[in-house]
């Protein structure tokens, strides 16, 4: 890859993994606007740093830049608004819908009930994830949702693989504990 061709492959790389980048941004920053801006920043930074890319997994390289942009944004925001929980789930639309479940009569069609159950479950999971410390949340998202390998996650987080493994184990344990009382996990065997 020559320096002259760099922007082309950067564009292709970013667009190919745009959902992954945005999803990571959403889970780190909690809202659409900040996530989109962070991905935008990341693209510019990636284009500038294209010739420093030293081979290896390109997706991990791109997501590492996205993550750094998200963390930078997170830090600025923390400085600006110290007293408001940055991870408030109220930003996520699913939480709002989940709350409406009790308002509907039980006699409604069961499909509506299913959908509300799903909305409730989503709200619960979303909240539980947002309540996890960032390092566990991002590790879980990268492994379980984006399905990165340990090596790729280590590249994104710029940590040793051992750290990835311990964060994953701790994150899973914390999330299992958080969900234990909610009966969310006990339902999974039914599927949808």
């Amino acid at each position, binding site marked *: 890859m020559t320096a002259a061709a760099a922007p082309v492959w950067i564009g292709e790389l970013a667009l190919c993994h745009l*959902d992954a980048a945005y999803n990571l941004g959403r889970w780190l920053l909690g809202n659409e606007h900040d996530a989109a801006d962070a991905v935008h920043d990341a693209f510019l930074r990636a284009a500038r740093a294209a010739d420093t890319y030293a081979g290896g997994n390109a997706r991990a390289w791109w997501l590492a830049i996205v993550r750094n942009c998200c963390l930078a944004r997170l830090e600025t925001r923390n400085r600006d608004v110290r007293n408001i929980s940055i991870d408030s789930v109220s930003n996520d639309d699913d939480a709002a819908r989940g709350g409406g479940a009790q308002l509907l009569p039980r006699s409604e069609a069961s499909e509506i009930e299913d959908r509300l159950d799903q909305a409730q479950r989503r709200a619960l999971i979303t909240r539980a994830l947002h309540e996890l410390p960032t390092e566990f949340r991002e590790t879980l998202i990268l492994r379980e949702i984006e399905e990165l390998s340990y090596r790729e996650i280590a590249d994104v987080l710029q940590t040793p693989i051992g750290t990835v*493994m311990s964060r*994953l184990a701790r994150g*899973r344990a914390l999330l299992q504990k958080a969900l234990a009382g909610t009966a969310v996990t006990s339902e999974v065997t039914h599927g949808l």
Partner: protein
Amino acid sequence: MDCRTAQDTLPLYFDGELDRAASREFETHLDTCADCRAALIELDALRTTLRRDAPRHAAPELLRKRIEKLAGAQLDVQAPASARRAAAHPPRWLAYAASTVLAFAAGGMAVSLWNSTNRNAESTQASASAQLARDLFASHWRALAATSPVDVISTDRHTVKPWFEGKIGIAPAVHDFAEQGFALVGGRIDYAGNLRVPALVYRHGQHLIDVFVLPDSATLPGDALRQTGYRIEAVRLGGQNAAIVSDMDPAELAHFVQLLAATK
């Protein structure tokens, strides 16, 4: 393997980070240890919950447009990004089509070296088909013997499909049938002759299943689709030719064929 070691190994096994030999060793332990089985089921329940209920936020169209525009601006003197991408793709497909021709030419030459049930096949097409079947078996066995049968480990079709698209410009229809007992393990790029083809890898119990996505021109022979307990079954996968290779019994295979054929 004692239980302590197994507990450390368990997440690695669950996350597909063990090689084949280590996986087998762990599975041997798993057969005898209810605690480890329970722990594995818990991990799996958590994953299922996350994949089902934790939304994977797709990038908004507006953001995609923004990045596309930026990517286009980086090219300045060259064509806009969209035009370049459109221009970049056909050659890849042409190369793919051209390699198909080569594969069949190679197949025609190689078949004379291969003494099999197709010895008396006369047309080039038939020998090419036989060669294709042989190559698919060989690819499958190579994968079984390798450290890992997949190049990209994933149970998520949204990872596997773009991965193929990025590597060889072919985007096969990828679906996970974990609920029906055929879990998507990942994908790899394999060779049939000198043709690079996407292989989707599924697991059904102890069976490893390869689904090779083939070009439209490829045809499988009417016979010679069975070798030492392994079978090839032709199937249409989302409008593309495909071949399943595995050692499943015919009933399981038929079930899997139905699942694949029903995908779009």
